[in-house]
Each structure stands twice: as C-alpha cells, then as structure tokens.
C-alpha cells in the first residue's frame, strides 16, 4: 500500500511539472507576441503621436515620403525634409555639408491610400467569386468527381506560397495580358490568393443555416434561387462577412504578391490624378507593406531612419491588427448567438 501511494505521489508531481512546462511554453509565446507589439507600439508611437494637441502626428499621416537632409549650420544641427530644405535654401544662400537619407522625412499618405485601394478592389473581387462558388458547393452540388476536384483545388490553392502567386500574377496579368505593374494586376493577384480562405469561410456559414429553412421555402413552391436568396443568404451573410474580414487582414498584410504586380517604391502622384478614367486601373501604387520592406532593407539602420521605419510599421500593424481583432471578436459573438 505504501509503495502504491508514493508512486501516486510521484505521478502527481510529474503531472504538475509537465503541466507547468506546457503553461510556460504557452505563456512564452504570448509574451513574445506582447513584446513585439510593445516594441513597435512604443517606438512607433513616438513617431505617430505627439505630446501637444492634436496628439497625432498629422504630417506623418498626410505627407509624401521625402528625402531627409541632415547638416550642421553654424553649430546648429539641422534636419530638414526635401521641401523644407528647398524653402530654407531660398533664404540661406550658402553651401552646406549635406548628408541625405532617402525616405526618412515626410509621411506615408500615398502608401495608406494605395493599401486601401488594393484591399477594396481585391476583396470585392474575392467576395464575388468566393461567395458564388461557396453557394454552388453548398447548395447545388452533389458529391461527384467534379466537386471532389474543386475541393482538392481549393485545398491546394490555399497552400500555394504567396511569392508563387506573385510570379503567377506577373506572368499572367503584367506580361501576358499586358496590364503592366498596376492596381488591376494587384487586385487580381491578391483576390485569387485570398479566394480559398473566402470560399471555405463562406461555405461553413452557408452550411450552418439549418436545412429546415430551405425545405420550408421549397415546400411553399419557391424555386431554388428564390430559396437561396430569401432564406439562406440573409442568414449566412453576417457569418460570411465576419470570416472574410480575416481575409482582409491577409490581403493588406501580404507583400510578396504585390512586389512585382502592383507596388512602386516611389510615386509622386496620387492615384486619382489621372488624365483618363481608365488609366486609374492601370497605374501602380505605393503600398504600406512594400514601403516597410523598402525602408527596412534599402536604407541603413540609424537614428534618422528609425523614425520612419517604426512609424510605418506601427501604422501598418495597427491597421491590420484592428481588422483582425474585429474579425475575431465578431466571430466569437456570432458563434454564441447563432445556435439554432
């Protein structure tokens, strides 16, 4: 009896130790994530927020990226952006010893606009195609070889690396169709990339609508399409949209697919300054993720560049994380509410 109880004690201690190891591993992951958020939040916050009213660095959010000029002027250290420097030049006609640092002054306004345009276009595309194919898969299809093929294709498409989507978009849209580096190439590349996620999410929501709703409608003499439109989609749509928000986070966050299909490192016109309205679709844009790539790999790490690097990363992270957070919170809510 005594041996058994000491054995029991040993297993209990063992259990404790192992569970604590699991707990530590879990909290270590969470701590790493928190550290990343804090580091970027604090250092980026210094750029984006200001101490005085209006507490937000409006210039950073509304200006163009510019070259920063650093120089010594009669013992005074000057840090001027390109436009400020030209202004200064008009009053001080002297030669100074300049150090110029690309991208490190001004703001990121065109990048924000470009990312917004890319997300809106590609999500519209992905939602139309994605919801339609989900309707087919859940409402019309019978299990057959064709459907199995579609499902295998969706599963595999979900695993294709984003850079391969970038190559594909470059080969098909940019070169073969001759759209060049443009918004519309980016829309199609990103839209097709996020398609599997949208289809899976939409199908799940459609299947969650109880069969009785369809049968009741069909029994009253409605056609299949009437049933879907009036009795299935309205109930599934909130679920579809919330799940798709996570797709938005992915579309906004990816860099590799737009590197050669839609993004410019620098462009000095806003997207709506076009001579003909069709040109709007065929122009490249600046985008936040690509801008982060450019400022973190093409210019050195120092006190002057850190401002724009962390600031851009902060703005981008906040945007993407807000989108993701909305999606996760909404999903938790719909899950608890939608129990039929």
């Amino acid at each position, binding site marked *: 009896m005594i041996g058994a109880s000491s054995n029991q004690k040993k297993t209990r201690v063992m259990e404790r130790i*192992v569970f604590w190891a699991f707990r530590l591993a879990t909290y270590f992951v969470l701590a790493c994530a928190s550290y990343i958020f804090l*580091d970027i939040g604090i250092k980026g916050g210094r750029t984006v927020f200001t101490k005085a009213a209006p507490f937000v660095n409006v210039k950073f959010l509304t200006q163009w990226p510019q070259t920063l000029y650093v120089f010594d002027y009669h013992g005074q250290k000057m840090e001027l952006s390109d436009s400020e420097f030209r202004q200064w030049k008009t009053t001080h006609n002297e030669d100074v010893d300049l150090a110029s640092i690309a991208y490190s002054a001004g703001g990121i306004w065109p990048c924000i606009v470009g990312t917004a345009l890319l997300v809106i276009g590609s999500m519209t595309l992905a939602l139309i195609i994605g919801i339609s194919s989900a309707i087919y898969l859940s409402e019309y299809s019978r299990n057959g070889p064709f459907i199995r093929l579609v499902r295998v294709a969706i599963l595999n498409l979900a695993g294709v690396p984003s850079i391969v989507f970038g190559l594909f978009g470059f080969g098909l849209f940019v070169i073969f169709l001759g759209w060049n580096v443009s918004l519309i190439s980016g829309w199609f590349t990103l839209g097709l990339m996020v398609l599997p996620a949208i289809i899976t999410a939409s199908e799940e929501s459609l299947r969650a609508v109880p069969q009785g709703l369809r049968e009741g409608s069909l029994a009253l003499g409605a056609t299949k399409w009437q049933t879907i439109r009036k009795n299935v989609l309205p109930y599934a749509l909130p679920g579809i949209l919330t799940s798709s928000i996570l797709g938005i986070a992915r579309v906004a966050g990816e860099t590799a697919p737009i590197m050669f299909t839609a993004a410019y490192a620098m462009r000095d016109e806003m997207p709506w300054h076009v001579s003909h309205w069709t040109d709007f679709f065929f122009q490249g844009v600046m985008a936040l993720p690509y801008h982060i790539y450019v400022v973190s790999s093409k210019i050195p790490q120092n006190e002057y560049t850190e401002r724009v690097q962390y600031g851009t990363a902060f703005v981008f992270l906040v945007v993407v994380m807000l989108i993701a957070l909305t999606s996760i919170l909404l999903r938790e809510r719909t899950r608890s509410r939608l129990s039929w």
Partner: protein
Amino acid sequence: MSILPAKRAPRRLSVDAAIKTFFGCNALVAIIVLALITIFLFREGSGFFAQNLANLRLYRRAGLEYVDLIRAEAQNHAQLSRELSQIRLQETNETALANFDVFAGAFSNSAEELNGLVSDANDEAVTARDATLESGTVDEQATRALRAAGPRFDEIATSMRAKIDNLISAPPALTSSKAVESLQRWQTATRKYLAHLQATSQQLREWDPNKPIPASRTVTSFLFGNEWITASFWQDWYGIIPLLVGSMMVAAVALIIAVPFGIASAIYVSEVAARGEKSLIKPYIEFISAIPSVVLGFFGIAVVGQAVRAASHMSILRWVSFFPISERLNVFTAGCLLAFMAVPTIFTLSEDALRNVPRGFKEASYALGANRLQTIARVLIPASLSGIVSAALLGLGRVIGETMVVLLCAGNRIAIPDFTQGLGAFFQPVHTMTGIIAQEMGEVVRGSIHYRALFMVGLVLFVLTLGINYLAQRFVARFRMSIG
C-alpha cells in the same frame, strides 16, 4: 398540379439553370487558377533549359572550362595558404613565428607563376567567348592559343612541385603542440595537392572543346548545381542547391522551435487551461497569425538579429565553439521569426485534432484510473497523432513558402553554409528560394536566362509545397479513419 400553368415551368427552370451554371463557373475558378499557375510558371520557365544548355555548351566551346581547370589548382593553393595563416594563430613563440612566416611567405610565392597563367588564360578565354557570341562560330586559332596554356601549366607544375617539396621537407619548428598537429595535417593535404597537380595536367591534355554535352546536363546542373552565380563576367551558374539548402535549414530551425511550442500550447489550452484562460489564449494566438510577415521581418532586422549577436558574445556562452558570431542576420534569426509565424498554424490545427478525439476515449481512460497526464500521453496524443503531424506539415508548408521574413533576415548570402563547423552552419547567412525570387525578379531582363531560372525556382517551390500539402491531407484522411 393542373392549377399551375404548364408553360411557365420550363422558363423558370432555364433561369434556375442559368443561375446554377453561373455559380458552377465560379466554383471552377479555383481549378482554373491552379491550372493557370502551373501553365504560367511553365510558360515563363520552360525556355530555361534550352538557354542553359546553350550556355553550358558555350562554356566548353570557348574554353572557359579549360581555364577553370587551371584556376581550381590556383584556388586550392590559395586555400592551403589560408590554412597556414590559421595555423599561425595557434602559435605564440616569437622565434618560431618568424621562421614560420618565412615558410608561409615562400609557400604563397610558389604560386605566383600559376596565378599569372590563370589571369592570362582568363583574358584569352573571355575574348574568345565574346568573339564566339558575336560571330556564332568558334575561332579555332583562339582555341589553339588557349591550349598553349596546357604545356605551360606542366612546366609551372613541375617547378612548383620542386619548390614545395623542398619547403615541406624542412618544416618550421613550432612549440605549441596544437600548431604542430595542424601543420602535420597541412603537410598531408599539401602532398595530396601536389599529387593532384599531375591529374590536372592529364585532364588538360585530354580536354576536348568539341566533346558534346548531353542535354540532360542542363537539368542536372539546375537541380544539383552547387552554385547560383548571376550577372558575372565569367560564367553564370544556375544551381538550385544553395537556395534549397538555405530554405531547408531555415525551415528546420523554425520547425524545431515551433513544433514543441505549438503542440505544448495546444495541449495546454485544450486539456489543462481553465475556461476563462482558454477564451483569452485562443484568440490571442490566432491574433498572432495576423501579424504581417513584413512587420516581423522588420522586427527581425531591428531587434532579433541584434539580440542573437549580443547573446553570442555573452561570456556564459563562451564554451560554444562557433560563438561569437559575426553576422546578425543568419539562419537562426530567420528561423526564430518563422517559428513565431508557424506556432499559430500548428497550434490551431493541433488543438482541433485534440478536440476531435471522442469524449469516450478520455472517459474510458479516467475510468481505468489514469490521471490527466497519463490520459494525454497515452490516449489523446496517439488518437490525434496524424492530425498533429499534418499540423506540423502545414506549418512546414507555410514556413517554406514564406518570403518577407527570410528576405529581410536570412542574410542573403548565396552559398552553401560551411557544414564543417557543425551546428555553427546554422549561424551563417544563407539565401532562400523565396528570397531569391523576391530579390532578383525586379531587376532581371524579361526573357533572359536569369529571368527564366527564377520562374523555374518558383516552379520547384510550387511543386514542393503541393507535395507537402498532399502529405498533410493524407495524414488527415488517416486520422479520420482511426477515429471512426
């Protein structure tokens, strides 16, 4: 039935059929896109093999190969010289060092003529190649002039052998036992080198510019080539091995870190954590998966790389042979960040697999008197093992295909790491398949061999991830059967 007008039925049906077709077409998009990806990767990449074959044939016809044979010997000699200076670091006695320096200087001077020969032959071969490219035919006279380097090499080799034989018959006396040992090893290597000179002479005599290169060489030189050299004045090589090795090493580090953490946290959340804890941890980890990779890459450059290098300089880690490291951006840095990306994937899928184990399994185990840990280890994990394995595989797929983190943090040096350092190889910079596409695609000329080579790399990546995906699906299918 007779109340309904009979005419209307067919029209409605046709509208419905049209709608059905519309939705069906949309469902087709997934298949079409997958097919288009394959087609376009092939379309842009397919010309690569023909161009590469022409490239390889030119390499032989113009005599670049011939020069490279001689150059290899000069490089081997330089390598031996470098080893001598390594040995020098192990010695402290000053008089011994002075003797040693004389010895090392004499050794390094013995290759002077050889180096001169290489640089002459180099220029001749480049001129011959450019002339061949311009006119399309090989200038026989130029080839003959180049072949004159062969007898000259024989002469140089003979005199060099005499000099070096003389040198190593009277090696400098060293005091440190470690240095003596190294020098002995160096002497054996040098003797081997001298013997190899003869073999090279033989090779040079037998070398034939018109010897045909089999067409399969273009495929093997891509799949098994050790060098990826582009835009060089000499010869471009497109071998995928350095990139593949880089990708694999980064993925290995990432998985070794991510799998334990992912599975441990999945078990913790599904079996151990309290309800409130669970509802907090789960969304948080899912939240992590939404962090954009480029932000993680930037974080790697700004923080993690520095931290890894600083850690390698700490005195408590002095015992690790390959520390301190010099490059802050290396395999390990990129691997850590990718592990962080893979944890949410592995966590979510493993947690699903664990939750899908039927309640009865667990209850039966408890009823037999097992405690929670025993139930987890003996019942839950075996029952969900294939799900967990497929989770790890999908994590691998995500890690291999990830671009921005490796592009920013893996160091981007196109070379196979030096595996003689053991684990130290994991602290060297590499380049990866995804990274090379992202980095070089924007700069290449459309339709050039380099451009097509990048598409071939993309194709390899595509096939690799499809294979990993397929394996993961197979495991999931088995997992369903084991429960049913």
